[in-house]
């Protein structure tokens, strides 16, 4: 029963959600609306659980003196300070200007969040030099498309082409070419065609998986054990 009842619940709830899409009557829309409200609340609890798990795992690592445990002390301290300020000091006004919670958000969370992702720019340049290898015709096609899009999407692409064309004394008809127009065509036609094929294929896959989950064929989300 520990697996069967949740499976039955999933099937019933999933069925109501799908029915509400096709049936505008309140017999379908009101239960669906209620279930979505429930999902919003349970998902919020899920985020709290995630934070609690981070706390538990790292506290455990500190007590067992795992590698890098002093840094985990920093992690736990950061978590507790943010939590205490937000839940007990600033409370519901934690996002108001002038509060310690907003100070932490503005001067700790924002800079670190942004910088973590900014590092990727350096790694993408390094990978472009060391890993982007054209070993086949298909890879060459990928590279050419990438180069045209990269150059066509920034002002320097057209400026560079203009400089080359103007200096070489090229016929007037060719002078009108712009790399940005070629980039736009690539995005509108070949890129669009392939992406749409991927979208359609992925949609069928998601639909199949959704139905498998609702019908109880796919049960991995229940986890192991009984």
């Amino acid at each position, binding site marked *: 029963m520990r697996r069967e009842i949740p499976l039955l619940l999933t099937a019933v709830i999933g069925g109501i959600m799908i029915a509400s899409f096709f049936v505008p009557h309140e017999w379908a829309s009101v239960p669906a609306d209620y279930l979505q409200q429930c999902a919003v609340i349970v998902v919020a609890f899920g985020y709290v659980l995630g934070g609690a798990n981070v706390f538990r795992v790292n506290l455990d690592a500190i007590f067992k003196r795992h590698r890098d445990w002093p840094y985990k002390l920093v992690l736990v301290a950061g978590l507790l300070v943010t939590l205490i300020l937000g839940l007990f000091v600033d409370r519901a006004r934690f996002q108001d200007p002038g509060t310690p919670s907003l100070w932490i958000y503005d001067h700790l969370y924002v800079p670190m969040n942004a910088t973590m992702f900014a590092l990727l720019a350096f790694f993408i*340049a390094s990978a472009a030099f060391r890993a982007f290898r054209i070993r086949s015709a298909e890879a060459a096609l990928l590279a050419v498309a990438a180069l045209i899009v990269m150059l066509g999407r920034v*002002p320097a692409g057209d400026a560079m082409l203009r400089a080359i064309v103007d200096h070489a004394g090229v016929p007037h008809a060719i002078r009108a070419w712009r790399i940005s127009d070629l980039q736009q065509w690539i995005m509108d036609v070949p890129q669009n065609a392939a992406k749409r094929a991927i979208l359609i294929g992925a949609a069928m896959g998601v639909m199949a998986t959704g139905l498998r989950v609702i019908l109880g064929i796919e049960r991995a989300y229940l986890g192991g054990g009984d």
Partner: protein
Amino acid sequence: MALERLERLDRRWLFLVLGLLVLGPLLWPLNLPIEPSRPSRQFNDAIASLPEGCTVLMSCDYDPASRPELVPMTKTALRQLWRKHCKVVVTVLWNGGPAIVDQTIEETADEFRARGEKLVDGVDYVNLGYKAGNEAVMVLMGQGIKSTFPLDQHRHDTSTLPILRNVTNYSSFPLLVNISAGYPGTKEWVQQVNSRFHLPMISGCTAVSVPEYYPYLQAGQLRGLLAGMAGAAEYEQLQGERGLATHGMDAQSLAHLFVALCILLGNVVLWSRRGGRA
């Protein structure tokens, strides 16, 4: 010999060159001309064609990591809407986003206040704040905005706010302006709201998401699309502004040229090695 050294090049030199190429134009701008693309014009035109004084839904689904790409387009969109005296209802579906979105709204509103134009929170705009639940929130809003968001970002009861007096669900809005960094974002709004409730929408998104949204643009599910920082700069250009996105495009240009050069050089090394072996 030179190619051998290139092959063994420490990647930190590449980091340094990229850093300098990005830093340089930020200090000494090149002022390269920006030509707005068709999707950016469509985004601009979709807002321009709105009736004056209407109420628009804007969903800002991003966090601080996407600030350079998305905050400039958020500000420009708010300015364009407020110049048309449109009222703006803002939602945030990303965990890390509500405070930065709120700051963006207030900074833009302060520009209007500094010119003597009155913009009142709760009357001309409202930030409904964050709600967990992704797609569930989107569909819930289709039944009732105020029941989904009983309080706004600043803990005001939404049932008492003048801006929401005549707002019930999506039928109250002529347009959804979605500024998104990923999941949940434009794709989910198209699937759950545009398809189900037929609310017209336009999107400004991070560049990495753009190729995925082009089919929606071509299908008419999106009426306009701003592609990353370049799209934000083009939108600023169309609105006669010169903001952070425009300021960043010179650096973007040099960085792109550098990455293109890295690809070419890396393959020159590869081909020369193959040629040497042959």
